[in-house]
């Protein structure tokens, strides 16, 4: 192996790919733009929906309930403190009106409610809504809580009239005490998304380069002349390997740039678990460096496997087909661990390829840092880099693979 040759191949490949507008667009430009556009569109629509659910609640009364007495009860008492609920007249067919989105709720109150109330008997208020409609089912909680509040007011009045302390109805009070590590709560979305994104992006980021660098060269007829130069096969392979690794990492950096822009543009989207809280990630430098190294080594493992596939493939198309499966290899552990909390991570995960990187990132982002586990993850990742590279090098040196046709 000759370091100068490795650098010559690396320099040429980077220059070649950097001049390819198609690769630059898919590896660099689209990832930077895609995330902010996606989050803006999705976040905007979620925000609009949330606003509509909580702020514009329309209620009508059924024909039977459209009396002054009931209107006073509904408007003047039950929904009095709810400016977001507007009572809009009467409907003749409550079911159709709700289904047709004319109103979100129709309220029906027993006609003799006043008598029952006076006698201390229960009476029914029927809330007609459409559970299959997101807005109707989403606003139901607000209507129910307004009715419950009214219920409590009535109970309190009755107890007070009997000189009984209303506290008698609440023998136990729940006192909440949050034991979560500071800031961890607000990073739920980040903790869930980043390990998943990183593992998936690093698995696919190098695919365009890997496909082009061996299968593409074979197909264009540039590969055989390359093998007749004084450069050894190992030098050629390493030059290509570092190029694929670089482009995997560039692709992740591009996606993260997009993610940071998206967070800055729409922080509320990433903070749904803790509305009003701030998004902040505080990672000790040593843990940050370890997690970056683990991510890079994961990229190196994928780079050598992608080059192995590209070497084995008979054509560019065949390489593309085989390499498209890499996304599934990354998707399965990424989705399987998406909801996993840092505390739930088993020690064995730090030994398993890919899972070790996901587990480390989850741990670091969740601020539950265990350096032993991180060092184990890095150690096993380096081992997998060596194994995958030895495998690819052996394939790259096998005539029956290299000249497979």
């Amino acid at each position, binding site marked *: 192996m000759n370091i100068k040759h490795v650098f010559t191949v690396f320099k040429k490949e980077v220059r070649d790919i950097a001049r390819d507008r198609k690769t630059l667009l898919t590896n660099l430009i689209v990832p930077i733009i895609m995330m902010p556009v996606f989050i803006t569109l999705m976040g905007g629509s979620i925000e609009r929906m949330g606003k509509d659910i909580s702020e514009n609640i329309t209620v009508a009364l059924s024909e039977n309930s459209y009396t002054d007495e009931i209107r006073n009860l509904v408007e003047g008492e039950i929904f009095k403190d709810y400016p977001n609920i507007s009572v809009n007249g009467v409907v003749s067919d409550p079911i159709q009106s709700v289904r047709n989105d004319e109103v979100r709720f129709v309220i029906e109150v027993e006609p003799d409610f006043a008598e029952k109330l006076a006698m201390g008997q229960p009476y029914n208020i029927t809330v007609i809504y459409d559970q299959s409609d997101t807005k109707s089912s989403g606003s139901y909680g607000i209507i129910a809580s307004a009715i419950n509040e009214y219920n409590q007011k009535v109970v309190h009045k009755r107890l007070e009239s009997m000189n009984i302390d209303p506290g008698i109805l609440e023998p136990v009070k729940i006192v909440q005490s949050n034991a979560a590590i500071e800031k961890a709560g607000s990073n739920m979305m980040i903790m869930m998304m980043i390990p998943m994104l990183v593992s998936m992006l690093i698995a696919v980021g190098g695919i365009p380069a890997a496909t082009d660098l061996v299968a593409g060269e074979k197909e264009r007829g540039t*590969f055989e002349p390359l093998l007749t130069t004084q450069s*050894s096969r190992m030098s050629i392979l390493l030059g290509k390997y570092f190029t694929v690794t670089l482009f995997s990492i560039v692709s992740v950096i591009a996606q993260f740039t997009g993610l940071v822009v998206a967070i800055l543009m729409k922080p509320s989207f990433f903070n749904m678990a803790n509305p009003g809280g701030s998004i902040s990630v505080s990672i000790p430098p040593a843990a940050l460096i370890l997690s970056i190294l683990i991510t890079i080594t994961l990229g190196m493992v994928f780079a050598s496997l992608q080059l192995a596939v590209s070497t084995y493939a008979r054509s560019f198309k065949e390489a593309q087909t085989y390499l498209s499966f890499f996304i599934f290899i990354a998707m399965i552990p990424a989705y399987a661990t998406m909801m996993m909390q840092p505390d739930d991570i088993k020690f064995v995960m730090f030994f398993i390829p890919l899972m070790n990187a996901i587990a480390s990132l989850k741990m670091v982002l969740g601020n539950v840092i265990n350096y032993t586990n991180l060092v184990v993850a890095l150690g096993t990742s380096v081992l997998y880099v060596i194994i995958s590279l030895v495998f690819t090098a052996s394939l790259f040196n096998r*005539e029956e693979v290299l*000249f497979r046709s």
Partner: protein
Amino acid sequence: MLEVKNLSKHFGDVKAVNDISFSVGKGEVFGLLGENGAGKTTTLRLLATMLKPTSGTALVGDYDLVREPERVRRNIGILFGGESGLYDRLTAAENIAYFGELNNMEKSELDRRVRELAEIFGMEEYINKRAGKFSKGMKQKVAFARSIVHNPQIMLFDEPTSGLDVSAVRDVHEFIQKCRDEGKTIVFSSHSMSEVEKLCDRVGIIHKGNLIAIGTIEELSSKFKGDSLENIFVKLVGEKNEH
């Protein structure tokens, strides 16, 4: 300059090249004539150290093919047929320099050599333009320059005119003659009789991995009672290959 000694290459049970021996002197063009799949490309790939021989060896210049493959590659230049095999997004100069760098040429020497080759092949106008937009003829000139950038003493041509039009074929022939005039040792594979008759000093007829005849065209002609090369070839490889 080039001495092939009992060279064999087997792929499983298939004897792609079977115990062939020949030698080519300085300034000589040796033609390997054979049908598709006869073993021409495998022989050239063996000589270029892209494949390892199953048995036998060759002396390329002063170096042994099996023991010193990197030194052998320093002494050979190779030109393949069909697509010229250039990097479209690199300029002509970058394409040539890439191979020069991988053949251990120093920067200053390489710059001088690229300028020299641009002049020799008349590429000055487009030497700094990207190869993707070049015509076939322009690409071919870059491929010629690339194959001799490190000034090899032995040139291997693997069916270099395959798929080319008339003028491109003429360019290739002129390039081979130019290499011969410079005293390079040349091995040239082809399945075209006229091409071999026109360019080669000596011919080896290869069939199913075996070198079944070797000599100058005159020697072969007198051995086969004045027959043309085409008739000799047909007689040797058998009537079944006539169609």
